[in-house]
């Protein structure tokens, strides 16, 4: 980083002389300066060769890979995702075929996860249930993010009375208990399907995201580069997008992985209460609920989907942890 001041470190007399000559700066460069510039760029090239061209995301990836726990978690997360995606494609089992002669088979080579009371293969049903859980989890996390970001960013960016009104309203909403409200929402809809589930899980869980976003935007708004952008004639919406929202991406990504397990757990919990996806479809929550009725004789039925949920939640938390460290510029030196 020492190249820049090479030019200004030349003797003052030289600079004075240069100014007097007039004409555009480039043509006024002396031989001495050219040599300096060349050595400077040569040094720069060397530095460029030894230091990888760091992009922000590249740096973050690098730091993430250094965190062993997070890397293991990411692998575990991806493995689970691969399991739920791939198994239904390659399995020859029919997840919905009833065969009471095959009921309650313990895990074996033919049925790695055993069978349920209707004789359905639990390996493929766990994979399919995982698809539902993941899908609801991602969809609900997405809607939570969108609602929370829009609400929080609006409040933080506009500030003043708008901010006050929006945040006091949010304070009131904060009083709503998450699960009872989700249950009520499902009751109001009357049916449980993918989208009502997403709405029920979103409706009382975007508050924290909105608050965090508002805080982020307000903090970022104080930055000199925001003021500088305005001073350069940038318009409000552009500043909001380019300098504020884009700079919260790191926080948003971390939040996705913090929110996802909560949502999936919520879905599982609702399913366990009997408010889940309708049979014969299943999610991990409904599978666990099926197992609950026979947990003494056939514990594997409840243990396996529960382990899946735990697996997902733990890995997501560790990923979030690693991402937070990786995306936080303050940990750059580490």
């Amino acid at each position, binding site marked *: *980083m*020492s*190249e*820049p*001041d*090479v*030019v*200004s*470190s030349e003797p003052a007399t030289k*600079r004075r002389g240069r*100014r007097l000559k007039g004409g*555009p*700066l*480039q043509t006024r460069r002396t031989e001495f300066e050219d040599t300096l*510039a060349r050595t*400077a*760029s040569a040094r*720069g*090239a060397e530095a*460029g060769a030894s230091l990888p*061209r*760091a*992009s*922000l995301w590249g740096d973050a990836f690098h730091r993430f890979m250094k965190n062993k726990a997070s890397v293991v978690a990411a692998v575990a997360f991806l493995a689970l995702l691969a399991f739920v995606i791939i198994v239904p494609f390659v399995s020859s089992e029919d997840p919905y075929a009833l065969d009471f002669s095959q009921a309650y088979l313990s895990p074996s080579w033919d049925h790695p996860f055993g069978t349920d009371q209707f004789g359905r293969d639990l390996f493929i049903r766990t994979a399919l249930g995982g698809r539902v859980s993941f899908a609801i989890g991602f969809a609900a996390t997405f809607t939570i993010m969108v609602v929370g970001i829009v609400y929080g960013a609006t409040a933080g960016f506009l*500030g*003043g009375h708008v901010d006050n009104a929006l945040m006091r309203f949010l304070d009131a909403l904060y009083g709503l208990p998450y699960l009872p409200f989700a249950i009520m929402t499902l009751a109001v809809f009357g049916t449980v399907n993918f989208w009502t589930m997403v709405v029920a899980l979103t409706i009382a869980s975007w508050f924290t995201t909105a608050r965090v976003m508002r805080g982020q935007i307000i903090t970022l708004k104080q*930055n*000199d*580069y925001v*003021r*500088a*952008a*305005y*001073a*350069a*004639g*940038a*318009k409000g919406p552009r500043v909001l997008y*380019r*300098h504020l929202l*884009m*700079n919260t991406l790191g926080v948003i990504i971390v939040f996705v992985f913090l929110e996802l397990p909560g949502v999936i757990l919520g879905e599982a919990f609702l399913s366990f209460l009997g408010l889940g996806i309708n049979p014969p479809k299943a999610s991990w929550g409904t599978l666990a609920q099926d197992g609950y009725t026979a947990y003494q004789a056939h514990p594997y039925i409840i243990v396996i989907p529960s382990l899946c949920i735990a697996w997902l939640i733990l890995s997501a938390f560790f990923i979030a942890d690693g991402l937070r460290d990786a995306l936080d*510029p303050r940990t*750059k030196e580490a």
Partner: protein
Amino acid sequence: MALLEVEDLRTYFKTREGEVHAVDGVSFEVEEGSVLGIVGESGCGKSVTSLSIMGLVQSPGRVVSGSIRFDGRELTTMSDKNLEDVRGKQIAMIFQDPMTSLNPTLTIGTQITETIRRHMDLSKSAAEKRAIGLLEEVHIPDAARRLRDYPHRFSGGMRQRVMIAMALSCNPQLLIADEPTTALDVTVQAGVLELLDDLRRDHGMTMIIISHNMGVIAETAEQVLVMYAGQVVEQATVIDLFDRPEHPYTEALLGSLPKIDEPNPRNGRLSTIPGRPPDLLVPPEACRFAPRCRYAGMDDCNKVQPELREIRTGHWVRSNHPASERAAEPVGAR
């Protein structure tokens, strides 16, 4: 007609306790091609004056009254949309802290080209070419390559050069430099000032340079405005001001500078100005400097606010006891 005419500018900030009169009746003119220096201690209103010109005073502050005419157009009543077009294109600004004035998540190139394309109808590649030219002009070696670097790869001095390049990107008529070297290393300061001066000459720019550093002002400015407690207390050409300061405050400011060649009268201790600036919440009716003034005596210094008057051609002062009248006065030092 001067390029910039500020008349009786008043910018107040609403607080819980009342309105803070940050800028209280400031008037000045800047002729095209000249350099105006504004000097004063922290909180005297110099930065707020510049932000008022840019229309960037943030809530709870606002320009209460007064007029700012730039190139014959009134800025205080201009619509936001028109003002956005003036900012960056006709009036550009450089901020104090180059470490925070650049968005850390965007490359230097992106930030410069965006500013260029905001105001000029250029293609992306043309804007990039222009950006390279600008970076070369501010002596960034290997400009084409450095365009793709993020701000954290630049030193403080380089970042300020980048900020200068960005400010120059649309050939502004007026450049406001708000403490452009305060956050920089002393060795880098001189280089940046030199650069600003060179560029100003090359581009035929008018400049307002704001500083609390008398040295910076002496080096760069042609006209100097001394501000105290939201008001102009003295205005003169730079040579006249430094050779024959009239206002007791200016005298004290210059007197507080350490000098290498003079033995210090106070046993090697720097002379200071006792007291502190008045509370701008309820500005006194009297001379605002009276409580700290060595010459405020039995007369109405503590009752009536002195007017800004022309004590000799081109030298304005707001004091009952300017240096050149003091010998004739019986009251003298207390």
